[in-house]
């Protein structure tokens, strides 16, 4: 069964998620018992003030940070107890990441940056890998920039490469932490359009944190987080 067939069903479930950070003698509560369900195909924005816990929430769902307590079920599997290698495998196979600062590797060209997560997925043949990379780059409209390096691209183009990299592995979920924060309004709009189009066409679930009012107006669901707690 592919993700298209399961559109609408809950596939990420958070219960009682708590995360505290220790800064010297001070303990900062980033998440205070968060409960949340994500459904397939949703285009969801997490909003909130700086330090409200948006990034922490995305990090927990993306298995790149561990909660102090609580449960995270991803596609029915409790991921908080997984080993580090198992979490790496899960991220590689099912989750795509888009970062605020693009995080492209400067010595690799567009094609190689997009190919990077596929190189460690040994179930994909070299031919299929090339096809997926080409398709992902075409989806973000950068086919003519395949051999360009990141320093030869604009900010908007770099973020498109990051989106293509996140989509190349055909993930169930794309997590984007402030994807338009480093872009001007024109480029922000283009990136939002692109993500919406991909959400519609590829049926990929998007969850992203943002301050961008343009983005908030166009999402199917908004999760408002304040002081580590989700407000309805």
């Amino acid at each position, binding site marked *: 069964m592919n993700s298209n067939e399961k559109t609408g069903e809950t596939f990420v479930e958070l219960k009682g998620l708590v995360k505290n950070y220790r800064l010297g003698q001070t303990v900062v509560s980033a998440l205070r018992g968060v409960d949340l369900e994500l459904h397939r195909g949703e285009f969801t924005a997490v909003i909130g003030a700086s330090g409200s816990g948006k990034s922490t929430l995305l990090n927990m769902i*993306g298995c*790149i940070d561990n909660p102090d307590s609580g449960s995270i079920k991803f596609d029915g599997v409790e991921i908080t107890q997984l080993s580090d*290698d198992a979490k*790496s495998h899960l991220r590689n196979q099912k989750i795509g990441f888009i970062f605020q600062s693009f995080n492209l590797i400067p*010595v690799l060209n567009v094609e190689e940056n997009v190919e990077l997560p596929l190189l460690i997925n040994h179930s994909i043949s070299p031919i299929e890998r090339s096809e997926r990379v080409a398709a992902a780059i075409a989806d973000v409209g950068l086919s003519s920039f395949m051999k360009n390096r990141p320093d030869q691209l604009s900010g908007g183009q770099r973020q498109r490469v990051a989106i293509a990299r996140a989509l190349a592995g055909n993930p169930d979920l794309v997590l984007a932490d402030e994807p338009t924060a480093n872009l001007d309004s024109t480029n922000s709009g283009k990136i939002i359009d692109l993500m919406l189009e991909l959400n519609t066409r590829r049926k990929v679930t998007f969850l992203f944190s943002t301050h961008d009012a343009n983005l908030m107006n166009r999402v199917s669901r908004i999760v408002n987080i304040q002081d580590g707690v989700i407000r309805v």
Partner: protein
Amino acid sequence: MALRNLSRNKRRNFATGAAIAAGFAALIALGGFVNRMENYLRVYTIYATRVGHINIYKEHGFERFSTKPKLYSLDEHELRTIQDIVASMDNVEMHGAQIVGMGIIGNGCRTVPFIANGIDPSIDLLLRNHSQMRKWMPKLRDFDKGRGLWNYDESQGAIALSNGLARLLGKSRVFDELPKDQKSVVVVDCSAPDAKEKISADTNVQLVAGGWSGMMSALDGEVVANFASAVTETNNSAILTSLKLLQKLYDTQNATFYSLWLKNPKELSVDMAKLKDNLAAAGLKTELYPWMDESVAPFYTGTMQFIYVMVGFISFVLAAVVILSIFNSATMTIIERSQEIGMMRSLGFTRRQIRQLFVAEMVFLSGISVVCGGIVAALGVFVVNSLGVPYKAPGIAGHMTLQLTPNFLIVSTSAALTLSLAILTTLIAVWSVAKTNIATLLLGSQR
């Protein structure tokens, strides 16, 4: 990707690579120096001082021979038996009995003590022409003046004096330099102005020693050659002559020890064991010494231990400099790229894969550096060996020439050591970063 990452911070990678290359070249040079010294001293011990690969002494002979030479030397029967046993061994290249003894030598006016070594002149000829002597100490295989003992009849009493001893005795000429009709020179008044000239005008010397039977013994000898004894310790006292002449001087048919030179020295321990069994089976009470035993080759073992300690210390300092350089570079690179590491981890790279990436980068850098260092070392060795820089080594008579003789083992071991250090140091540097929380890594410089 690892190779391309090297182009990121060219200046830093160049500095790190240069440190690795310099360290590698220095290791090769040090190894080449040690190899040269080891071979020089080994060949000096085995062939130039005629110690041989294995020495056979009478039981307790090595320790007690000097006080009771007759009792603790090998007699005729023992020498014959040993000769028969040794002659049947396939790996023996040369063998023969030797006498070592002391006494005084005079020129008619002055006497000085000597330490004499007596050997069959035909063996001395073989030893001096041995391929190892030609390779490692070509200068020492020739006499500085005169010809070898094998060129003279036994009755002539031919002896070779070390350069220092010849100088002390005022014997500036050797037998072949004298006119054919030279008559014996008698110096009546040693304080006369022409005494020195008369002494140097002929090559006759008198050897006096205590015979092994207890009587004093003396005989005349002719100085036929002068030689460099290689070590300062013996340069003023060494005499080389025939076994028979010394047997005559010490009034004996015995010998101090019996030496064997092997075709394949790697079989030394096997041959030692075989020889020991055969000697015991023949009823001989003997003791065997390998050439590197501290008792028979104190100069070799002492000098090499000193060199190993010195070179070990220098190598340690070199390794520390290279390690710190790599560690510093790797740490800075990893800190700079922590956000990238976080990104790669979020894409699904495991800790192990991250470590492998950084190790691969260092392997590439080290590999390139080792090749460059090897070229620098080859050029350096060529220049040093071409210059022929003379230097004075402690305990060695005259000047040695600085020669570096690295071989494949030294180069490959140095390369393996350099690469291992580079990999280990990088692993240490990347280990903790690879274990750092991904969210923390993604913060990069904001951490």
